[in-house]
Structures are given as structure tokens and as C-alpha cells.
């Protein structure tokens, strides 16, 4: 299929039509793309390098945003915090970190959930029973609680200094481990349906190994719902990271995500410096809202029953 052919067919598709005809979804996509670009180009676009102590000047501390005070300064459009860091640049770098953690944790949960779901559905028996009971017990608890618990256990196993260095891996692991259940259940359900179909029997008859059958033949047929869950869970993963960082068990203040920025701003909130907490907060809320709207739309657009 040539590129022109692909473009023509894409422009003709149902999904493109449902995308175009919903202004909310077009806006959500625009906002998401804008935030993605601003975040991942932050080393180029950000006006300051807020986490390089050499560039900070305490004389610039606690400047209000432009239009909100006499000593406001266009060098710092959204003001500065108590160490003279530019709030706008902090937000750009922080959003990048939040997005990286969100994507990585979602991918980790997806891979883990798919693997366990495939094995559970294809092998069956005691393995299936064990994995699914594990899923049941974990579902008893909200994901936030599970992530907190995993984080606490890791802290018990390693020293505190080491923890700051590997905090980002710990948090990706903790969030990933607390979100795998939904994928595993969905994949298992689809595998149970697929594995009795002729094409799987045919693959078995020509002597393919179970692993090859699962990955090459069954997996592509169960990926649709998995990708929808992943989109919806992305917003949730970003929120969970922000919540953990806000609680002080996520990313350290030397390498802050949006949640860490909100925690630092909240610590000085009572002194009336609202801009340190409000701007990262708005960014987080807008990002999650846009991603959630996209996820909801994708779920409905890919669901043939709703057409």
C-alpha cells in the first residue's frame, strides 16, 4: 500500500470521521500535543535551567507572575519560587518527567498484564487459578495503596540515599505493578475465546511452540481492547505519580515532577505565594483532562457496538 493510498484510506475511515466531527476531541488532541512538545523540547524551549544551582540567583526569589505585582519581571513570566527558580521552566521540565513516568509505568503494566494474561488464559489450570486469585486480592485495594505499599517495601530493602538515585525506577515499578490486573483480565478473557478457534488449532497442528502461538497468533487478536485500556490508564498513571510525589514518596525535590512541584508549593502556600502551586496544578489538571477525553473518545470510536 503506497503512502498516498494509505492517506486516502485514512481520510475515508470511520475513526477519522468521528475524530473530525467532535470539536472537544480535536481540542483535547491539540492541547495534548502542545503539552507533549513543550515538555519534551524543554531543554531547548525553557527560558531557564531551574535545576542547575549555578544559574540561580536568590535576588530573583519569590517574584510574582507578570500582571500580578510591581516587581514582576518578563524574564519570569509565571514568577519564581523561594529559591529563585523560574516557575514556567520548572513546569516544563516537571511535565517531561511526569510524562516519562506515566508512559513508562503504563507500558510496564501493559507488558506485565499481557504476559500474565496470555499465560493464564493459554495454560489454564492451577497457573490460571493462581494468577487470577492474585488479581482478585490485589483488586481489593485501590491502586494508590498498592503503589504506596510497594514504595515502602523498597525503602525497607535499600538505604535512603540509594532510594533518591533510583526513585524514578521505583515509582515506575510501583505504579506498573499496581495497574497490571485490568490488562491481565482482559487478555485472559480474549485468549479463552481465541484459543479454541481454528487458526490456533492449525498453528498447533503444524507444530509451533506455545510461546510462538501466543505471541504471533493470539496476541495480535487481543490487542484492540488492551490499547484502549492503556490510553485510559495513562491519565490515571500520571495522576498516581503526581499523588505519590505530592505525598513525598515519589520523585525527590532535586528532580521534581509536577506532583513534587505542587508539594513544594503547598509547603509555602500559607504565606500567600499562590503561583508556585497553582500553575503546576493547572498544568497537571489540563494534561489529565485532555488525556482522559482522548481515552474516552478512543474507547467509543473503537467499540463497534456503539456505531
Amino acid at each position, binding site marked *: 500500500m503506497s503512502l498516498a493510498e494509505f492517506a486516502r484510506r485514512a481520510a475515508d475511515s470511520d475513526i477519522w470521521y468521528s475524530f473530525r466531527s467532535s470539536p472537544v476531541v480535536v481540542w483535547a488532541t491539540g492541547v495534548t500535543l502542545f503539552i507533549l512538545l513543550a515538555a519534551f523540547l524543554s531543554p531547548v524551549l525553557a527560558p531557564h535551567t531551574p535545576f542547575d544551582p549555578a544559574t540561580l540567583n536568590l535576588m530573583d526569589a519569590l517574584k510574582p507572575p507578570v500582571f500580578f505585582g510591581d516587581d514582576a519581571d518578563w524574564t519570569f513570566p509565571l514568577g519564581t519560587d523561594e529559591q529563585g527558580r523560574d516557575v514556567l521552566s520548572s513546569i516544563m521540565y516537571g511535565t517531561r518527567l511526569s510524562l516519562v513516568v506515566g508512559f513508562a509505568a503504563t507500558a510496564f503494566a501493559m507488558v506485565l498484564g499481557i504476559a500474565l494474561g496470555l499465560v493464564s488464559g493459554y495454560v489454564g489450570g492451577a497457573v490460571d487459578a493462581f494468577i487470577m486469585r492474585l488479581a482478585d486480592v490485589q483488586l481489593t485495594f485501590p491502586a494508590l495503596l498498592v503503589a504506596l505499599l510497594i514504595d515502602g*517495601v523498597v525503602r525497607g530493602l535499600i538505604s535512603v540515599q540509594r532510594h533518591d538515585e533510583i526513585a524514578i525506577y521505583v515509582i515506575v515499578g510501583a505504579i506498573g505493578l499496581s495497574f497490571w490486573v485490568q490488562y491481565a483480565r482482559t487478555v485472559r478473557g480474549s485468549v479463552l475465546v481465541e484459543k479454541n478457534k481454528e487458526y490456533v488449532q492449525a498453528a498447533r497442528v503444524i507444530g509451533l511452540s506455545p510461546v510462538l502461538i501466543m505471541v504471533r497468533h493470539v496476541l495480535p487478536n487481543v490487542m484492540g481492547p488492551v490499547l484502549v485500556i492503556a490510553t485510559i490508564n495513562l491519565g490515571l498513571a500520571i495522576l498516581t505519580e503526581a499523588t505519590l510525589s505530592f505525598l513525598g514518596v515519589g520523585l525527590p525535590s532535586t528532580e521534581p515532577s509536577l506532583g513534587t512541584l505542587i508539594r513544594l508549593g*503547598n509547603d509555602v*502556600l500559607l504565606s500567600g505565594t499562590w503561583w508556585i502551586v497553582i500553575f503546576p496544578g493547572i498544568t*497537571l489538571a489540563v494534561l489529565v483532562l485532555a488525556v482522559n477525553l482522548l481515552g474516552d473518545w478512543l474507547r467509543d470510536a473503537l467499540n463497534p457496538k456503539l456505531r
Partner: protein
Amino acid sequence: MTAFVLRRLAQSIAVLLAVGLVAFLLFRYVGDPISGMVGQDTSLQEREELRQRLGLNDPAPLQFARFVGNAAQGWFGLSYRTSEPVSRMILERMPATLELALVAALFAVLVGVPMGVWTGLYPRHWSSRLLQAVSLIGVSLPTFLIGILLILVFAVILGVLPSFGRGDTVQLGWWTSGFFTLSGLKALILPSITLGLFQLTLIMRLVRSEMLEVMRTDYIKFARARGLTNRAINFGHALKNTLVPVITITGLQLGAIIAFSIVTETVFSWPGMGQLFVQSVQFADIPVMAAYLLLVALFFVLINLVVDLLYYAVDPRLRSGAATAGARGH
């Protein structure tokens, strides 16, 4: 009915045992259980004797059995951080969390259900559309951000409500209550709104969609044909039939309220179990974490059980269904 209750009880106990196993593994193998009891100058031999005396050298299944036995009697050992008994630390902080969760749940139900009924009966009214839009934003805003915004508006700018703590409390036996003083009640307002807002939007959207569905059914048309008043139709016939899913979600959300009180309590420095849990995660205080885990599991299991039983009270179809199923079984 009895068979159903017994089966659910057995499932609940299995879940509790599984969580207990996780708690035991944490308690026993993450960190050293005796490190909090010995000083720097305790000799290796004395440590070994202590291990022997505490049974830490016994086979693991025996230790697990002992752990379950102790937990059933409310003994979880000493905190690594404060060296106090874990059960006392949790018990001291439980009233604060339960009072907050109760008020938040009441707020969510008492405001959410009427809002859902209104938006379900008049979906095209401008106020319904406004409520829908606001609720979408409410779902996307993280709990801690709502708390911070409320503090900013009502404590920092307007200065009318306290931003942290429980205010004055009254001692009722071992229970400390904030319900009986003005400052205690004032201190409850912002945290319970923060905690209940997400559940409120959830309940509102649920009641709305259920109402929309029920209002289209034949028995509502028939009730109208019989000339019943709008009030009897809306509340006696329509609302009553939306209650089963609402009870399920509300019940399950009660567990979520207790879990998310972790966040709200941190924002408002509320001296409850959630704050204790966050502190123990920061300090890797494993005994407190293990005990909190078990306690939350117990809450969840109890809530699920009560929700299942409430179905029977609300939905007569289930009662007759279970009766016939039971008759067939015997």
C-alpha cells in the same frame, strides 16, 4: 440465603488470609523484626537468644499461624519508628479517619443523589448541563489539588475556615470525637468536601444515567397513566429502581474513601490513619504498614459483605430468585 452468606463469608476469610500472608512476609522478611528491640551494645548471643525466645527461628508456617493468631487479637508488634505498640498507634488515630470518611460519604450521597435525580429528570435544563460539565472537571482534578484550592480560597484568602488539624476534640472513652465542638465541626468542612467530591460526581453521574434509563420504561408510563403524582413516580418508582447500582458503587467507594483519606489527611494535616501510613511508608516502618494493610483489607471485606446483604433488602427480585435457587438446591 444462608448458603449465600456462608459462601461470601468463606471468600472473605480467604481474602483476609491472603492479605495476612503478604503482611506476614513483609513483617518477617523486610527489615529485621528485632532491630527495634535491641541496643547497639547487644551481643550476638543475646540477639540469638531473643530470636529464639520470640520464635523467629521456628518454621515459617508456624510463625505465620502465630502471626495470624496475634493479629486476630490486635497485636502487631512495635513500630520501628516510635517503638510504641502498633495497635495503640492505629487505634488512637482511627476515630479521626472514620469521622472524616463518614462525613465525606454522607456529603457525597446526600448531595450527589439529588443532583443525579435532577439532572436525570431534566437532562436538557441549563443547570443540568452545567452540573454535567462541572462533574467532568471534578473527575479529572486530583484530590490533593482540590484540597489545596479549597485551602487557598477559604483559609488563605477568606480566612474563614481552618486549613489543618481537627480543632478541639471531645474524649468519649477511647474515641476522640470532633463532632461536639464548633472548631471540630468547622475543621471537618474542607477535608470532607475534598474527600467526598470525587464520590459525589461519581454518584451523580450514575444516578443520572440510571434515571434516564428507568424513565423510559413501560412501568413509568403505566404509573403516569394511573394518574400518580410526579413525586410518587419520580421517587417511589423511578429512584427506588436505580438504587441497586448506586448502593454497589457507594459501598465500594466507601473503601476508596478510606484509601484516599491518605491524600486528604496529608493535605490537611489530619491526625488519622492515612497520615500515619504515609509517615510509615516514608520511614519504611514495616509493622505499621502491615497492620494498616490488614485493617484496610478488613474494612473492604466487611463493606463488600454489607453491600451484598443490602441487595436483598432493596431488590425483591433477588430475594425470590435466591429462594427458588435454594429450593432447587435442596
